[in-house]
């Protein structure tokens, strides 16, 4: 395998009791690339994200990360090596406050072993946390219980929690779904600019083609579990198959 790529998949396949959800997926991602993953519902986008981040184990095929085989690792191991993700339906701690959510995420990425027995409330961490909350524009809500927040806010928190782990590769599963139209670009501006600064490789699943066009270097289109197009956004959005099967016109 080529060390030039940060992430590579080879003939990745996943089937659920005989039904194929993804097959022949061969993708190579360069460091620092921002990639949009598009496709209709059930095209296999989320299955792909789940396989990379260890939520699902591929039926066959290989995943390489920085030259190492990481096929079938556990989610937490993926996090350890620097492959993080956000979720389509935000996965946050509903009964806790926004700040507690982020504090837990931060202390897990910064503390190891016995340090985890130190109190969660910690001045230094708290200041850092406030900064991030500010950055993601959820500072005002920091003492609210998450279950009282809007979908969009939860989404932001969800992404923030994934980002604080300083991932090398970040997979965002529909980061703007459930977010109001006005907020969408604002959020993505924040997220992408922050990630670009740190040189993080980003793959995000997206339905909104305006966002895809605006932020990505490259588009990968899925249809029925297969990659039907892998190209620059300009070309990809004009690709016949993409127009037929993804854009649906």
């Amino acid at each position, binding site marked *: 395998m080529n060390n030039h790529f940060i992430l590579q998949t080879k003939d990745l396949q996943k089937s659920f009791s005989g039904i194929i959800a993804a097959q022949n997926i061969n993708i190579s991602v360069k460091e620092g690339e921002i990639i949009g993953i598009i496709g209709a519902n059930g095209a296999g986008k989320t299955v792909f994200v789940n396989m990379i981040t260890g939520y699902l184990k591929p039926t066959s095929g290989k995943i390489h990360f920085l030259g190492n085989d990481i096929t079938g690792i556990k*989610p937490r191991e993926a996090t350890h090596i620097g492959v993080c993700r956000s979720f389509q339906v935000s996965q946050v701690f509903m009964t*806790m406050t926004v700040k507690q959510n982020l504090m837990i995420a931060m*202390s897990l*990425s910064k503390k190891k072993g016995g340090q985890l*027995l130190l109190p*969660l409330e910690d001045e230094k961490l708290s200041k850092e946390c406030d900064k991030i909350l500010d950055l993601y524009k959820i500072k005002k809500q920091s003492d609210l219980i998450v279950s009282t927040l809007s979908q969009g806010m939860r989404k932001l928190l969800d992404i923030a929690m*994934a980002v604080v782990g300083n991932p090398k590769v970040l997979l965002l599963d529909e980061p703007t779904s459930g977010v109001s139209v006005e907020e969408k670009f604002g959020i993505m501006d924040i997220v992408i600019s922050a990630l670009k600064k740190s040189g993080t490789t980003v793959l995000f699943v997206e339905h909104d083609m305006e966002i895809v066009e605006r932020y990505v270097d490259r588009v990968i289109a899925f249809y029925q579990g297969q990659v039907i197009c892998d190209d620059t956004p300009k070309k990809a959005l004009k690709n016949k198959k993409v127009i037929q099967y993804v854009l649906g016109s």
Partner: protein
Amino acid sequence: MFKGILKDQSVQTSIGVIFILLIFGSFILPEWMSNNFMYGMSRGLAVLGLMILWRTNLVSFGHALYYGFGAYAVALCQKFFGVTDIFLRLLIAVAAAGLLGFALGFILRKYREIFFAMLSLAFSMVLYGLLAKAEFLGSTDGMSISPSTFFGTELGRIALFNFIGLVVILAIIFAQAYLRSSLGHLTTAIQDNEIRVEYLGYSVEKAIHIKYVISACLAGGAGGLMAASLGQVDPDSMVLWSVSGELVFVTIMSGLGNILAPFIGAVIFEFIRTYAFEWAPQAWQMIIGGTLLAIIFFSPGGLWSLFQKLNFLRKKNNE
């Protein structure tokens, strides 16, 4: 880990309340009453253990396994090695229960909800089946425990009472330090969302395992102290499923709100039982069952939420 723990509100109140109790119990209250406080505080340790588990939404219907295991460890060490020192007793009970919890934790940490409850129940009943039938373990009679000693001198009831009080204070400090730590918060987070915890890079099973062992140690210590203060162990009142049920009942009665709640709940339970048994020997179970239903229906947050309501009312009046 314990940095600044003494500045914690709950810990300060707990220490204060227990100190006053110890002074009362040692000098003013009649002995039967300090007995009830002693039993209540001992049982409270097991309830604290259950409360800590419950914060991850794991409810063990077999925690009497550790409670009884701690108690029997004390009994057997006296029978075979003549150990009566109170420190050793406590240590043995905690260690024995902790080791058992550590071993079983490898299995139980994979279980959730009703399956966790049922497997715990099964394990506790395995121990029950063993104890109730094996003659050398005392069968259903159990075993007597002689009064505890402290470096060779016999410990009076008052001394034992104070010892238990101090153990409770230590347990509260330890438990609060755990709960406020990142790990402690993390285990509460597990109840909300296991997937996210895994994606934050921590093993949910490991976190649960640690918590389970802590809980087992607390329950074992409770059993050991209970054995020492009662002077008797037997499977029906230490290991049977209904004992586990009682522990869960006291947990729900106390509420999960605060670290002191389990002890207050357990003491109140002890008094309800004593008086119910004295005044209505034919119906004491009915009184306890009725209390349980009343708590579930009218104060699902346990007694602690009643305190909070009380506080709210007081504030209103002051305004």
